[in-house]
Each structure stands twice: as C-alpha cells, then as structure tokens.
C-alpha cells in the first residue's frame, strides 16, 4: 500500500511541476508581448537613425549569385574598392 502511495505522490509532484513550468512560460510570453508594444510606441517617436549604407566595409562572400534582369551575369563585376594611395598615382590632365 505504501508503495502505491509513493507512486501516486511522485506522479502528482511531477505533474504539478510541469504545470507550473508551463504557467511561467505563458506569463513570460505575455510580458514579452507587452514589453514589445511599449518599445514600439517609444521607438515611433525616435529619429530613424538606424539606416543602411552604400559603403561596403567587409568583403563577405555570397553563397549564391543574384539573378539579374536584362543583362548577362558574366558581364557583371563587383567594384573593387581600394584605399587612397593604392595603384598608380593619378594626375588629372
């Protein structure tokens, strides 16, 4: 009889623990949702300073080539950037 009682108590404890864990998950989810809404309302008033730039400072490799309309890929060359002083000296005529 004691053996069965132990089994029942242990099962109840495990189920209770999992229910608490799930409840915490739901609470966190709600908190995140509310926090995001608050942040979005704040950010709408902030200057849009996080913007893209045409300046390429890292040469990461492309995993796949983009498809182009109206031109042949083999005619396309990525512009090779350089630091001032590299290559022949420029003398404007």
């Amino acid at each position, binding site marked *: 009889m004691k053996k069965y009682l132990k*089994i029942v108590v242990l099962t109840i404890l495990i189920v209770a623990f999992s229910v608490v864990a799930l409840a915490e998950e739901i609470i966190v989810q709600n908190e995140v949702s509310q926090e995001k809404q608050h942040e979005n309302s704040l950010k709408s008033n902030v200057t849009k300073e*996080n913007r893209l730039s*045409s*300046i390429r400072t890292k040469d990461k490799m492309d995993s796949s080539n*983009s498809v*182009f309309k109206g031109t042949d890929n083999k005619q396309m060359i990525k512009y090779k950037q350089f630091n001032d002083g590299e290559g022949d000296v420029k003398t*404007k005529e």
Partner: protein
Amino acid sequence: MYKKVFLILFSIFLLGAIVSCTSSNDGGPPWHFRGDLTLYNDTSFSISKLYLTPANEPEWGPDQLSSDLLSGDSYTITDIIPDLYDVKAVIIGNLSKYYAYKYDIPIEARHTFDLYAYNSDFSGSLEIVNNDTTGSYIDAIYVSPAGSGSWGPNQLESSIAPGDFKHLYDLPPDSYDVKIVWDTIPYNVYYYDNIIKSLTLLTINAD
C-alpha cells in the same frame, strides 16, 4: 514491477515535455531570450534580397526573404540569437543590382532592432561599352573616386572586345574618374568626374 517501469517512463516523458517548453529546437537559447530585426523599406523600389549573418561569419548565407519586400512595407526576422550581426539588402532593378549594408548590429534578447532603408542608402552602377569601330580591345579599366590621388586596381578580369561591355556594380555614390586602357594608341583615355548616383546605372560609351 510494471508500475515501477511505468513510473520511470512517465517521469522521463514529463521531463522531456518540460525541457521542450524551456529550450529551442536548434540548441540555442529559448525564444524569449532572443531578439528580432525589422527592416522598413522606405525606398521607392522592392527589396529583393535580405541577408543577415553574425558579424564574424565570412559568408552572407541564405536570403531571408521569401518574396520581395515592397516599397513601404516592413519585414521582421524573429528569434535571432543575441550577437552582433551584419545585414545586406539588395534591390534588383531592370538595368542593374544595387546594394546596401549595415554592420555590427547589436541584437539583444527581447528587443527589436529597427532598421530603415532609403533610396540614398544604396549603391550605383557603371557600364563601360566598347564602341570602337577599328577592332581595338579595352585591356584595363580604373575607376577611382574623384577625391582619390591614385587609380587603385584594374577592375577588369578580361579584355572587352569591340561591341562588348562590362558592368561594374556596388559602387558607393560619388564622383569618379575613369581611366580606360586600350590595346592600341592612344592607349590611355580618361573620363573625369562621372557622377554615380544611388540606384542608377551610368553608361560610358568608349571609342
């Protein structure tokens, strides 16, 4: 005996369920310890490709967009593991493709990083056409910002035959000087102060 076995199996099942609730499938932190990134397309074109990779990765990885991001729309990449990230956006126009970047973006848990794309943030392109009618080849092309004191590297990997062209892309908008090297006299021909604009293809007809 059977009840013991049942209890052990049941316990393992419950523990598994609990663990699956608090961690992610990819072995990273659970979703509520991750961040998001939203790109707002404030350009007048559709953004066709969007790449997001950790700042220390040498490749751009897969395109994050499943379809074009239309002008005026936004797109959010969710559940990003907190780290520094690089972003590349691509507009594929009818004449060329144009790029824009943002490096070392801090993605933080439970925060959304808002990123904005404007027309002027994208690169421009330059096309050099060999219009020579005497059969001369273009052996080299140097394209240097007007403010630079040097010509930099040859942009060509192979010569341009008469009637053919090469298309340079991903140039930051600026004023550029161009030196074209022919295989016949007068050899070097210069085109100064060519304005490359964002999302625009400039053509130089060389002859």
